């Protein structure tokens, strides 16, 4: 019998549909269906100025907007041959890592709620709110930041930000201990999650699964280390890995990643305190668009022979490896923008980690995948 879990189902966390073929309680086959949230972001980008696409990136993944802004910006900068100042690179790492904390806390809240635990859900949301508050205090908005610009970032940190941020980090480290006491310390949690949703490394690689799901299978792959971008090559951190490849292992990997994020953030905050400087490249072409005025029409720019180029970037987003391809044909707008969503690959592999388990196991397993439908459908 086929049943539809979704598009409106407490398990899905967003608009998508998991079709499941069951025999009694046993899962025989699954068929994920995506596309309910398609907004045509790639197509819309083709008639937005390079900077205006940033507004779409925040809406692309609504729990990790900064990571997607960073992804697009790296691609666009490569296509336009612009280099950001060093301080902007550190500020971007700051954004990325805070976003990783925010996203993983959101994942924690959603995941424990899937297991039926309400109090940890509230703790997760409460602590994520602190991260959003920090974002708000320097970008001006809680979720739609529009902070990065081609050639740097919009503004520098306000005075007193680094002290506030350190306080939040210290507070969060305390909370991680509490989370572990609540989850790992609970035998019920361990009995429910151990040996569940196993996806081994060889299979994960074959299916294009990336991010914490791959690292939970024992594969030490992290773009921040393997293909460093921004300032990651100047920072010290470890890649979190676990071996069990099950739901608990994914929990452990994400918790460890949050601790590593705190470690990175302390280094970044220290660096930012010591090194003031410009945050936007000092020579930017006027035709970039907002906040600079667009001029003339496309034909005008093509006639003037502005430089062309291609940009490819990949970023270790909280959910996995995201990639962007930006084609600059010399106009005001990117000619084509293509994104690769890690969650799309992670959900598409559902057959290999769901079949053989029970219906009641679906919420914890899919919860441990960390689904953000905004970036799946774009």
């Amino acid at each position, binding site marked *: 019998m086929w049943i539809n879990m979704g598009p409106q189902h407490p398990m899905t966390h967003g608009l998508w549909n998991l079709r499941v073929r069951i025999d009694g309680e046993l899962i025989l086959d699954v068929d994920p269906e995506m596309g309910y949230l398609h907004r045509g972001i790639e197509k819309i980008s083709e008639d937005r100025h390079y900077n205006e696409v940033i507004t779409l990136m925040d809406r692309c993944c609504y729990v990790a907007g900064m990571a997607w802004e960073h992804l697009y910006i790296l691609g666009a900068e490569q296509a336009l041959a612009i280099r950001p100042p060093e301080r902007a690179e550190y500020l971007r790492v700051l954004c990325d890592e805070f976003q990783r904390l925010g996203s993983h806390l959101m994942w924690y809240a959603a995941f424990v709620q899937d297991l039926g635990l309400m109090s940890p859900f509230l703790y997760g949301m409460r602590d994520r709110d602190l991260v959003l*508050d920090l974002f708000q205090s320097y970008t*001006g908005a809680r979720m*739609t930041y529009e902070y990065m610009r081609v050639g740097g970032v*919009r503004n520098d940190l306000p005075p007193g930000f680094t002290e506030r941020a350190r306080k939040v980090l210290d507070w969060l480290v305390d909370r991680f201990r509490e989370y*572990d*006491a609540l989850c790992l*310390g609970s*035998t019920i949690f361990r009995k429910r999650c151990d040996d569940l949703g196993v996806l081994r490394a060889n299979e994960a690689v074959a299916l294009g699964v990336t991010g914490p799901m791959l690292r939970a299978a024992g594969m030490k792959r992290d773009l921040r280390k393997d293909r460093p971008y921004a300032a990651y090559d100047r920072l010290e951190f470890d890649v979190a890995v676990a071996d069990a490849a099950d739901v608990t292992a994914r929990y452990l990997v994400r918790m460890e990643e949050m601790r590593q994020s705190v470690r990175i953030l302390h280094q970044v905050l220290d660096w930012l305190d010591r090194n003031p400087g410009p945050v936007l490249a000092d020579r930017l072409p006027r035709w970039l668009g907002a906040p600079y*005025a667009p001029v003339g029409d496309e034909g*005008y720019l093509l006639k003037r022979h502005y430089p062309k180029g291609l940009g490819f970037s990949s970023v270790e987003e909280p959910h996995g490896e995201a990639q962007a391809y930006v084609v600059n044909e010399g106009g005001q707008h990117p000619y084509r923008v293509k994104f690769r969503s890690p969650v799309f690959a992670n959900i598409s592999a559902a057959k290999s980690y769901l079949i053989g388990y029970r219906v009641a196991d679906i919420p914890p397993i899919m919860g441990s995948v960390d689904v953000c439908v905004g970036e799946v459908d774009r």
Partner: protein
Amino acid sequence: MTEEGTATEENPVLYVVRPMATAAKQFAKSLVRPSTVIYPFERLEDPAFREEVAVASGKPIGVGAIWDNYRGVHALNIATCISCNLCAFSCPDLCIEMVTVPGGDPKHPKKCPEIDYGKCSYCGFCSDACPEGCLTMTTRYELATAKRSEMVYSPEKLYEVFRTKLPMNPIRLERPENEDQILLDPPLCIGCNACARDCPTACITMLDVAKPEAKAGEKLPKRIWKEPVVNDSDCVRCGTCISVCPKECLFWGKRP
């Protein structure tokens, strides 16, 4: 990886009790100071939230405050607006329309932005682009109305927001020092005066150029023998001159 709190086989009662003890601790703390804000009575823009008081629950309050750089409803100072159109150009949602306000002369009507908040995404690109700093964003965020038409804020209504003296967004984008200028392709120019007429800052002057001697058998182009010269320090880089030029002879570049 932390081994802290890893479970072992033991009395099933402890399964439940141990995590509950942690939760109970949190509950006790939240009685002293909850993490939530009692909204209409407490407001996040209150200065009290900016002070970093150490509270019983340990939550670093003061992080949650709405700071002056919050991107809320816009404030427009009509008096200093130069009708340069930059805000409308840079809006990704096309929610800004330039409408005529009293104060201009018949040849150059004064136009100020009218913002449709039904479409606005509060991205702040318009206030970033405004060269005069007259379009800023404030900490106001309550916009509920009974009618959809009230979501459209005319320049006068935006001016009222300006007059409430709400904290204004202090962030000004620094102009890059070495930015592109308006350059002219002299052979293409026909001296039509369109750029000088429409420049919002009146920084273009039409200067006479020498009319070359026509060689035998060659016809001089039909044109007015004047050429625009841009006063670079007054130019706000709005690009109006480029878009009105009929011959596409103005362009962005750097004087060598």
